[in-house]
């Protein structure tokens, strides 16, 4: 069952195309990671799916209806930006306010307990630490017993402990059958939580598959070597130099090594390794993407 769907969605802001023919379907029970650099279109896509914006072309659906109808959002949980909590309201009041919009909200004490905020119930949100504010913001997404939770960059700027508290909450929600769409530019976060990753770059879906498959699909290898001078080499996605070592990212390591040998480069300490997902991700978003080859099964 599909809870949220975008079909050939294009969104323009004036002359700027933020999304360009995007397809996405979030099925019940999935945790989908939306991955991409800042400005890739992740937030725009999320704003369309939660009903804050209308697509310029194409269609978005939430629980089979228009996300802009309030009724379609009854089983949706969204997290506000942490900076956006009303500073003079107390933690308990903010929770009660959001809860009043839903027919069967989670009791306040239970929710605050789950997010380790029980002691803060009487404090004004303006006096909370950054981590507490963020936990409260995420907690609000779960107040209404949602079936789908949308988290836009939930742990940006959090310390490791706070991040893990939030991850546990997301995992527990998923274990009970909940569905999550989460955007991040932390690969660690997507790898830790999501089974499926949708890579967005420059307003397009560059890849939509399992974390492993995306990594394998891009197939970027890192070729490291020590050499004084390197000629122009074809097929190199990026080149960096640290402490005298040169690191080359390429989609075809075999051919790169052949080229190095054929060019007569005096190199030593050659190493070929698979890349981290981060490098793979940077390669497909910063390189020259050809979505037709990168987009796998939906």
């Amino acid at each position, binding site marked *: 069952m599909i809870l949220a769907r975008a079909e050939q969605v294009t969104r323009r802001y004036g002359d700027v195309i933020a999304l360009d023919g995007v397809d996405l379907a979030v099925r019940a029970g999935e945790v989908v990671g939306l991955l991409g650099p800042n400005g890739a279109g992740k937030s725009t896509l999320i704003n369309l799916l*939660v*009903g*804050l*914006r*209308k697509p310029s072309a194409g269609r978005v659906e939430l629980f089979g209806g228009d996300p802009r109808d*309030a*009724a379609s*959002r*009854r089983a*949706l949980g*969204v997290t*506000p*930006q942490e*900076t*956006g*909590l*009303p500073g*003079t*309201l107390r933690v308990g*009041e903010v929770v009660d*306010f*959001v809860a*009043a*919009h*839903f027919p069967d909200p989670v009791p306040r004490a239970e929710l605050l307990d789950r997010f380790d905020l029980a002691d803060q119930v009487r404090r*004004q949100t303006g006096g909370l630490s950054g981590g507490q504010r963020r936990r409260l913001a995420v907690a609000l997404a779960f107040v*209404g017993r949602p079936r789908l939770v949308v988290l836009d960059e939930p742990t940006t700027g959090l310390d490791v402990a706070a991040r893990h508290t939030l991850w546990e909450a997301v995992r527990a929600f998923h274990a009970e059958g909940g569905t999550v769409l989460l955007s991040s530019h932390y690969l660690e976060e997507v790898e830790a939580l999501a089974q499926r990753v949708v890579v967005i770059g420059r307003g397009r879906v560059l890849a939509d598959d399992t974390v492993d498959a995306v990594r394998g699909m891009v197939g970027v290898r890192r070729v490291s070597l020590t050499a004084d001078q390197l000629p122009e080499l074809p097929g190199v996605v990026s080149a960096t130099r640290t402490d005298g070592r040169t690191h080359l990212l390429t989609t075809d390591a075999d051919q790169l090594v052949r080229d190095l040998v054929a060019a007569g480069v005096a190199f030593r300490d050659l190493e070929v390794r698979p890349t981290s997902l981060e490098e793979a991700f940077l390669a497909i978003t910063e390189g020259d993407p050809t979505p037709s080859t990168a987009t796998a099964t939906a």
Partner: protein
Amino acid sequence: MRLTLLHARYQLLEILRVPIAVVGSMFFPAAAMLFFVVPFAGDDPVGATYATAAMVTFAVLSANVFQYGIGVAEDRDQPWNPYTRTLPAGPGPRLAGRILAGLALTYLAMLPVVVIAAVATAARVSAAQFLLGALGVAVVSVPFTLLGLAIGYSLPSKAAIVVAQVIFFPLAFGGGLLSAPDDAPGFVKVIAPYLPSRGAVELMWTAVTDWRPDPVALGMLGGWIVALAGLAGWAYRRDEGRRFT
């Protein structure tokens, strides 16, 4: 309706948590009452009643222009506002709740004026006049609410603060709120009927005294309400269009 009341309650809660803001909107009309009305017209029942009604109108004007003009503009800067629109309610209850809360604060802002009038002046009204006056406050809130909303939805908060202040004083003084009905400076007499503040105070005077309102001022007030409603509606739709379409 339940959600409208909820939003109104939370708007009030947010505002009352910073009591100085409320005290501010109560202070100005109360101070004007104490400094200008009590010493000069306090002993004259008729003059004091007119002056009190004018000060109530002054309080309504300042409360509305500032709380909507600045409050709405500041809210638009806050990410909390778009967040509330992802809740299963839509923008309606929030706007309606804001107006309800605004009306409550308007009554709060004029309360000291009425108390001072009762305690320290000879101003007297009958029970019926008192009720009419209380009702009149809600009626004369309409143009100033619309004016405040037009400012708040069309300007960024820093500009809204300035514009609200720049508009507020000429409306108050030019409308004759700071002078007795027949004792205003000459140029005020000339321009007053064309300002919405004059029509408003004429309505208040009519409610609590045997004043016969100037039809020009009332006609102009009607015109202002239509124009300000158009302006506020345009600003609201433009803001919605920019941020939510």
